[in-house]
């Protein structure tokens, strides 16, 4: 069926003692017992409570802001408006941790004059109690003079449209030109054109944004913060006007992130108030604040023109993308770039043209969200594959088989991924695992869908990403890992432990991991972009290997063999060819300690560094590597009510090498839930920029009643560039889910709903239109 990949296999036939086992994560028992402190669980004596005052019109001029009554209220320590701020801006770009040039995307910390989105912060209150802060909030007087706004990115592109950002609202543009798309389309037997629409999505982590800040005895502003990115300390320092080494972020285990805690959220507010009041300040967003306080997933409008031959060979594709960036730029240029690179999907397309634009509107700003543009592209390219198959009257799987990219072939940017491309195996296995279909009965129509994908892991290579980890062995043989990596729930820190104990031949009971303190743990970069295992895992592995090598050299001396003959596993050190000759690991460590052998190592791992893509053709390297896989579902659609139920849901992914299968399954299962909500029920409704669904009773995530038991099929090519040949799975787990569901619904009812989410209303409307057209 598939050729064995012609790429290096990092660990074929290797037996691991700790790796690849579904061991309980180091953070799990504490969380189960209720012993794990989250950022919101910290308090300090004399602490003040913060409240944010927000604009209640999306596009307006601030004509009056009077906080004097609030300031006079007993128990109010401080009220800050833009007038109190030094003339500084907040950076919203991808953190410049590597010193790479940032984009020009800074924005105002508090509204100076122009309000661009509903809920944009006007003022900050710090008070002795939450109740007093609430009363002060009522005493703040402001007036907003409405300015004509624009809430649709296509409208925002028209001449004469209200300007939200820049000269023409276009905040980013990307092009990919490979081969000759028009010639490819002209050579086709059939050209199929469709437009697909994707919606806003809320991250809906269960822990709202929360933090506690104080200035310490060295005048360092400390922030205990729920964040994916402790290295925002640099942007925070710039925003409040202090040197970078005067801001310290102490992370905590994060109550969910999904990209929603990737940008700076409340850190700058906390830092400003801690500086100004000289007291600890705490801010915890309400759920409604959280809904309006961080960026959403970009809605996209994607138009695909695909040319194919009669026998199903793609001859060319033209793609036009418009993304709604909302009121501020944030990470829109990067999200858009991911979408453009992903445009053809995991298919061999020699003639490709992509033109993608991100457009400012007065909607909520949009930024990072698990899947990061690659997912929106997949929603389009995989629905388009089904539409092409339908037009050709060809089996959907067969069309995909004839076009899948193979190992060693270049992607859209001309870059050849260094690892195996096992999309075909993943798709076949997921499809087959659906088994026998349930029968359609009356108004309950059964349908099936599949979506294959390509999703990057690791950050854009032109950002020159690095990550550090430190591994040390204590005198009693226990192991310590230190790394700045934040754990947002996927088991990022436990994986580092599992890697270190595998290398050092001890067990998970022997390791403790210290993480996410920007001042005292080695800086590991962001927990974003499916990079934590790849980047920090490699750093931890190399650090552990360096320690192991020194210990093994000493053991070799003891055994009278070569260092390469020394094995370490299950707390024993032994001669590989003669395991009888051994000693306890702890005894070796004691010898090394007595003799001053260096038992720790700090390693910086560097991702491949590249130049920017060619601005005209988009050719070059964008990412370090890619994960490939597929998701298959079976649904039932009730043609009377329009309701869709997902009956079977199967993700098949080549993860390279599983570090912890339970954690990998967890990513697949959770990603499936997120994708199902995106496909069917999660809808953010805005009226002139005002969010009218700011709660979990209006914004409907899949519950225990909605989710099928998810089946995970894990393939291991051991070809990835992560530790032990691992690839990333955090974002890839989600990418294919929504288009698979959309394809299944279309299969069930014979007509496609071109806009997500596929709500009962949209299903019924589509059926009705189809019926009318048929009459």
């Amino acid at each position, binding site marked *: 069926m598939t050729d064995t990949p012609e790429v290096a296999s990092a660990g074929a036939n290797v037996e691991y003692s700790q790796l690849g086992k579904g061991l309980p994560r180091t953070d799990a028992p504490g969380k189960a017992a209720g012993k794990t402190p989250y950022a919101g669980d910290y308090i300090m004596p004399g602490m003040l409570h913060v409240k944010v005052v927000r604009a209640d019109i999306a596009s307006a001029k601030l004509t009056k802001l009077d906080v004097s009554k609030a300031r006079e209220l007993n128990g109010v320590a401080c009220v800050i408006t833009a007038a109190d701020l030094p003339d500084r801006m907040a950076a919203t770009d991808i953190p410049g941790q590597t010193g790479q040039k940032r984009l020009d995307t800074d924005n105002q910390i508090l509204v100076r004059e122009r309000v661009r989105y509903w809920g944009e912060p006007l003022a900050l209150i710090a008070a002795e109690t939450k109740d007093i802060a609430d009363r002060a909030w009522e005493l703040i007087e402001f007036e907003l003079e409405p300015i004509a706004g624009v809430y649709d990115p296509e409208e925002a592109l028209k001449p004469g449209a209200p300007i939200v950002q820049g000269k023409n609202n276009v905040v980013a543009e990307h092009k990919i030109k490979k081969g000759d798309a028009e010639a490819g389309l002209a050579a086709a037997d059939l050209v199929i054109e469709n437009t697909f629409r994707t919606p806003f999505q809320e991250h809906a982590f269960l*822990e709202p944004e929360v933090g506690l800040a104080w200035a310490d005895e060295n005048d360092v502003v400390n922030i205990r913060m729920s964040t994916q990115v402790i290295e925002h300390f640099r942007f925070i320092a710039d925003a409040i006007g202090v040197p970078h080494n005067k801001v310290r972020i102490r992370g905590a285990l994060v109550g969910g992130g999904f990209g929603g805690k990737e940008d700076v959220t409340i850190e700058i507010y906390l830092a400003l108030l801690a500086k100004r009041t000289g007291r600890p300040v705490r801010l915890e967003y309400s759920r409604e604040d959280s809904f309006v306080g961080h960026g959403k997933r970009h809605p996209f409008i994607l138009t695909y023109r695909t040319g194919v031959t009669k026998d199903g060979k793609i001859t060319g594709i033209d793609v036009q993308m418009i993304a709604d960036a909302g009121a501020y730029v944030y990470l829109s240029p990067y999200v858009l770039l991911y979408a453009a690179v992903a445009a053809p999907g995991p298919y061999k397309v020699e003639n490709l043209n992509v033109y993608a634009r991100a457009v400012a509107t007065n909607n909520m700003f949009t930024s990072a969200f698990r899947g990061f543009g690659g997912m929106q592209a997949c929603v389009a390219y995989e629905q388009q594959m089904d539409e092409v198959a339908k037009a050709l009257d060809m089996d959907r799987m067969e069309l995909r088989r004839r076009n899948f990219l193979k190992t060693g072939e270049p992607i859209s940017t001309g870059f050849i991924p260094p690892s195996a491309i096992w999309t075909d195996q993943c798709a076949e296995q997921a499809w087959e695992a659906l088994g026998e279909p349930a029968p359609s009965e009356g108004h309950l129509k059964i349908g099936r869908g599949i979506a294959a994908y390509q999703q990057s892991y690791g950050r854009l290579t032109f950002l020159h990403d690095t990550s550090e980890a430190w591994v040390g062995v204590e005198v009693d043989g226990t192991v310590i890992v230190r790394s700045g990596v934040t754990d947002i*729930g996927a088991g990022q820190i436990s994986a580092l432990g599992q890697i270190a104990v595998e290398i050092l031949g001890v067990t998970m009971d022997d390791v403790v991991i210290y993480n996410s303190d920007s001042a005292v743990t080695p800086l590991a970069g962001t927990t974003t972009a499916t990079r934590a295992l790849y980047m920090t895992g490699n750093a931890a592995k190399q650090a552990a290997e360096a320690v192991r090598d020194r210990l093994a050299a000493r053991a070799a001396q003891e055994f009278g063999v070569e260092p390469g003959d020394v094995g370490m596993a299950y707390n024993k050190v032994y001669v590989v060819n003669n395991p009888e000759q051994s000693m306890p690991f702890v005894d070796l460590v004691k010898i090394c300690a007595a003799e001053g052998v260096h038992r720790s190592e700090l390693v910086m791992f560097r991702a491949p560094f590249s130049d920017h893509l060619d601005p005209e053709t988009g050719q070059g390297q964008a990412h370090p590597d890619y994960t490939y896989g597929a998701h298959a579902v079976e649904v039932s659609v009730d043609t009377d009510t329009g309701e869709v139920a997902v009956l079977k849901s199967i993700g098949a992914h080549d993860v390279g090498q599983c570090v912890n299968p339970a954690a990998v399954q967890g990513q697949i299962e959770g990603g499936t839930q997120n994708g199902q909500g995106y496909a069917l029920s999660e809808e953010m409704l805005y009226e002139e920029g005002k969010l009218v669904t700011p709660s979990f009773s209006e914004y409907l995530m899949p519950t225990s009643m909605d989710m099928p038991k998810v089946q995970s099929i894990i393939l291991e090519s051991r070809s990835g560039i992560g530790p032990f040949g691992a690839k990333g799975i955090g974002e890839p787990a989600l990418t294919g889910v929504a288009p698979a569901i959309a394809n299944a619904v279309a299969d069930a009812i014979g007509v496609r709903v071109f806009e997500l989410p596929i709500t009962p209303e949209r299903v019924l409307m589509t059926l009705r239109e189809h019926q009318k057209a048929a009459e």
Partner: protein
Amino acid sequence: MSTNKMITLNINGREEPTEVPAHRTLLEALRDLGHVEVKCGCEKGDCGACAVLVDGMAVDSCLTLAWTSEGKEITTVLGLGDMETPHPLQKSFSDTGAIQCGYCTPGLIIASKSMIAENPDPSEQDIRIGLSGNLCRCTGYTKVFDAVTEAAAVMRAEGGKS
């Protein structure tokens, strides 16, 4: 603003006096007393992260007023077991990988405990219904179903002691 009143809450078997106004929710009162294992997710009864047992029944502590909780037995996830001697639910959630970010976990474990007390041998559908008031954004519930099934079996074998 209402006046404060001294009340005594029975939390995990200990009497804890506290002075709170009438509008203070049980969630706020518990967290102010240091029971930060009770998590705040929405303050609207939508997510279940703040669930505690009140006389053995799971309730959203954000929808319960502290004043009305006097004289009742309040149990948080810390009252079920600790890291050395975890409750079967705490152990199964940890062992099966049903915990990711863990923020919803205390509420899920409390809701599971309440459900198993009513129905010691729940089917998958019973578990779905029993946990339908608890949102989780990380796990997709697949391993949560496994964890609850596994714990219920252990609890039956123990004769309903835990």
